[in-house]
């Protein structure tokens, strides 16, 4: 199936990514008590294989926090409409734990990283929910140390579903004085994207039943 988003839709999604990651950066700065810099976010609509390449080296080992978000629309709860994904180096994971005064790679360290994911994800998703009027409910975070490809492909399999197109909204956050950069990704499902765009009045939405173009 060949779905695509037009420039106007991508601009709107980029704007959502920008607001979501901006809110997340503010939350992280408050949590750590230091400035967090935010690079200009991207909104990429790419075939799955290319989406993975755009995120990074598939066999690089990364620390990650995965936070699914369920949408509650019309009383029916639909799972994983947007998955929030944080990717960072092992070294960055260690610095974050240090800043929070916990031992890296310990149960407490992992739970602290999960909490960072929680706070960043919940604030970003909260901002999106507020803008679009969509009820989005964050689910508990998972902390994984694994191959980047394994983490990202597993998430994209879940979000892309039948489509061979992944929408990747990502931003780089860097923490002052900690030599630590985080990739902050919002990965909506096709239904999630349609809903976000619909709420913004840009709903020439991709429809899974469309004939191939």
């Amino acid at each position: 199936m060949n779905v695509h988003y037009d420039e106007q839709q991508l601009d709107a999604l980029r704007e959502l990514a920008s607001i979501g990651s901006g809110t997340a950066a503010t939350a992280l700065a408050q949590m750590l008590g230091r400035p967090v810099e935010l690079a200009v976010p991207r909104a990429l609509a790419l075939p799955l294989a290319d989406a993975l390449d755009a995120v990074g080296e598939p066999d690089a080992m990364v620390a990650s926090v995965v936070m699914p978000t369920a949408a509650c629309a019309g009383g029916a709860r639909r799972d994983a409409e947007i998955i929030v994904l944080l990717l960072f180096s092992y070294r960055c994971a260690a610095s974050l734990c240090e800043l929070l005064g916990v031992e890296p790679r310990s149960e407490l360290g992992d739970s602290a990283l999960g909490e960072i994911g929680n706070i960043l994800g919940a604030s970003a998703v909260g901002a999106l929910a507020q803008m679009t009027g969509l009820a989005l409910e964050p689910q508990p975070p998972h902390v994984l140390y694994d191959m980047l490809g394994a983490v990202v492909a597993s998430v994209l399999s879940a979000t892309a579903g039948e489509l061979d197109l992944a929408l990747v909204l990502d931003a780089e956050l860097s923490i002052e004085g900690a030599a630590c950069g985080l990739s902050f990704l919002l990965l909506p499902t096709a239904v999630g994207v349609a809903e976000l765009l619909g709420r913004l009045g840009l709903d020439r939405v991709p429809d899974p039943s469309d004939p191939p173009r």
Partner: protein
Amino acid sequence: MGELAVSAAADDELVSMGLGSCVGVALLDRERGIAGLAHVMLPEANAAYSAPAKFADRAVPALLASTERLGARRERMVAVLAGGAQMFGGNGRTTGVAGLDLGARNEAAVRAALAEVGISVRATATGGDRGRTVRVRVGEARVSVKEAGGVEVSLWHPLIAADDLVEIS
């Protein structure tokens, strides 16, 4: 990711990096020196979809056809599987999120598709909760697998006895 490759060139190496819930399916015909590798992401396709390699039920026949076009023979072929991990929810936890527990379903769908075409699965490194990279050395008909944070280990080579089944978990 969602792609397939076949080769009859002895020096070629087919690689799927960072398999999480995805399954790498390797088909090997050692006698003819032909191998193929598909990166399966989801168990089954809905009717409308055209790109085959992404879905277990389409990837297996497509991979088989591609290797047969190079001259491989089905009755000589063996299958080796890697991946299908439960990335989110190891240690008995459940995510409570549909769609993120694909690993086991992908593996089951691949096995069913292979059974349908009569190819036996001879070696597996599947399940668990770690990502894997799988490499197929075409000429030697060897398959190796490396788990996240681990070292590369041999998963399949032609000297493994015909009635042996290799499982690395």
